[in-house]
């Protein structure tokens, strides 16, 4: 097939005008477990599904704090994510040192987008294999951005990336108009519902596999934080109260699925801790 002869060099276009290496890098993002982001007038939040390699293993960290006013959720190669998030932290620190202000979020995202673009145009380099959802707040309010290995970055009202993220997007598209005026608890509830859409059959969100990142004023169920409004990650038992607030999922028959006594084992899925 044509595709295969034009896809080994990053710097070779295909006859259809595509860069296949970059598209394969986007595939790596789609292999990562889902992350959802959404924002209101006052808050921006991230929700991520954590994966574990087996019952004995811990759950992979999906969220990182970049600065008091910026946090990210990752999907894809974790090692690439560490390198890029370290770079973001350096940029944000540098801005505080030079100008005594939190780095404008759009500029921070542009800086990694420009960095990733270099890897799509220089011979011998491979694109980064990780996508980010970035939330932050600055003088112009809360923001949500998506960063992808192609070097594109866009701002969104709501977005999801990773495995089966299209289902989450469908939920978000249905409800996004109501997000602007939501309070924090309702926003998290919407986000959890969206994240739930990405789960496979028989899996559910629990305190082990769900993490929530928040930017904005303190919510009802949180203890006061300092500095006010700064990025924080809720994990483990802290998430329980929000999980409880979700509406029960209707027992809708999934098309072409046969609920069975023995569910097929899937090698790459979140493992349920028994009990």
């Amino acid at each position, binding site marked *: 097939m044509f595709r295969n002869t034009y896809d080994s060099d990053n710097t070779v276009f295909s006859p259809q005008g595509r860069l296949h290496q970059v598209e394969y890098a986007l595939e790596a993002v789609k292999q990562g477990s889902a992350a959802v982001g959404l924002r209101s007038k006052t808050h921006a939040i991230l929700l991520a599904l954590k994966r574990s390699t087996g019952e004995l293993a811990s759950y992979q960290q999906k969220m990182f704090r970049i600065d008091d006013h910026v946090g990210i959720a990752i999907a894809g190669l974790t090692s690439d994510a560490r390198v890029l998030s370290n770079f973001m932290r350096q940029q944000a620190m540098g801005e505080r040192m030079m100008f005594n*202000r939190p780095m404008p979020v759009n500029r921070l995202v542009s800086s990694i987008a420009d960095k990733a673009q270099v890897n799509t145009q220089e011979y011998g380099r491979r694109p980064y294999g990780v996508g980010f959802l970035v939330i932050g707040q600055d003088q112009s309010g809360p923001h949500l951005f998506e960063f992808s290995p192609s070097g594109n970055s866009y701002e969104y009202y709501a977005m999801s990336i990773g495995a089966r993220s299209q289902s989450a997007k469908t939920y978000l598209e249905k409800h996004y108009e109501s997000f602007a005026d939501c309070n924090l608890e309702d926003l998290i509830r919407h986000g959890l519902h969206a994240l739930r859409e990405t789960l496979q059959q028989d899996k559910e969100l629990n305190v082990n596999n769900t993490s929530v990142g928040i930017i904005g004023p303190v919510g009802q169920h949180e203890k006061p934080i300092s500095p006010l409004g700064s990025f924080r990650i809720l994990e483990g038992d802290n998430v329980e109260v929000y999980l409880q607030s979700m509406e029960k999922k209707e027992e809708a028959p999934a098309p072409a699925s046969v609920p069975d006594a023995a569910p097929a084992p899937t090698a790459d899925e979140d493992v349920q801790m028994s009990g």
Partner: protein
Amino acid sequence: MDHFPTNWGRPRNDAFDAYATYPIHQRPYNGPKDSFADGVQRTQQPIVTGTSVLAIKYKDGVMMAADNLASYGSLARFKDVQRLHQVGNYTVIGAGGDMSDFQYIQYILEELSIDEISAQDGHELGPVEIHEYMSQLMYARRSKMNPLWNSLLIGGFKDGKRFLSYVDLLGTTYSASTLATGYGAFIAQPLLRKAVEGREDVITEEEARKILEDSLRVLFYRDARSLNKFQIAAISSAGVSISDSMQLDTAWSFAENIRGYGAQTQ
């Protein structure tokens, strides 16, 4: 001592320099040096200089004043120099000290403003950011033993807040509702403090102008490197406005009766 590993033991080419003997190792020289031998590489003394800059906070914002003189030692060389410079829409920077270093600072700030303007994303550099940037720059230069030989006042008004701060060639910074550099720090500062302190939210623009003019007049009498031609910059919610040059009226008639001064023939 050579701190840079890239200068150590470079790979040798056995064909023509088997023992890595070139370039020849030099020991550092720490004896007496002629400062001007290589052409001046580091600022060691200011040449063309400006004198005091004064600034106060008033009801609507911040006001800054400086005369129009750049001296060449004791010669009053350039008498139409603008020592107050606007940066962006919210800030004025006033400089005393070496004027060529100030021109370089203006160039640096221009580059910064251009980058910020072309970002076009709703973020703008205000006095807080400019001051932080200048502090880092001035301190970094002093740490390299190559200072920008200036004392700067940075004043501005943004997001409803007044800002006034000082930074100098050593990287020292401080902030107050009245500031002055050079001779002004000795002669004008007590006058400014008396007139302003505690009344920052009461002083009108007219009164602020008068306070600065009076202090400039005293400086003209007492500072031998000053001039009676000056400008005043006002920064408020209405933006930045730097006035045209004005003349200070002075009274020298007291000299009539003093032997050796005035028109008397003795």
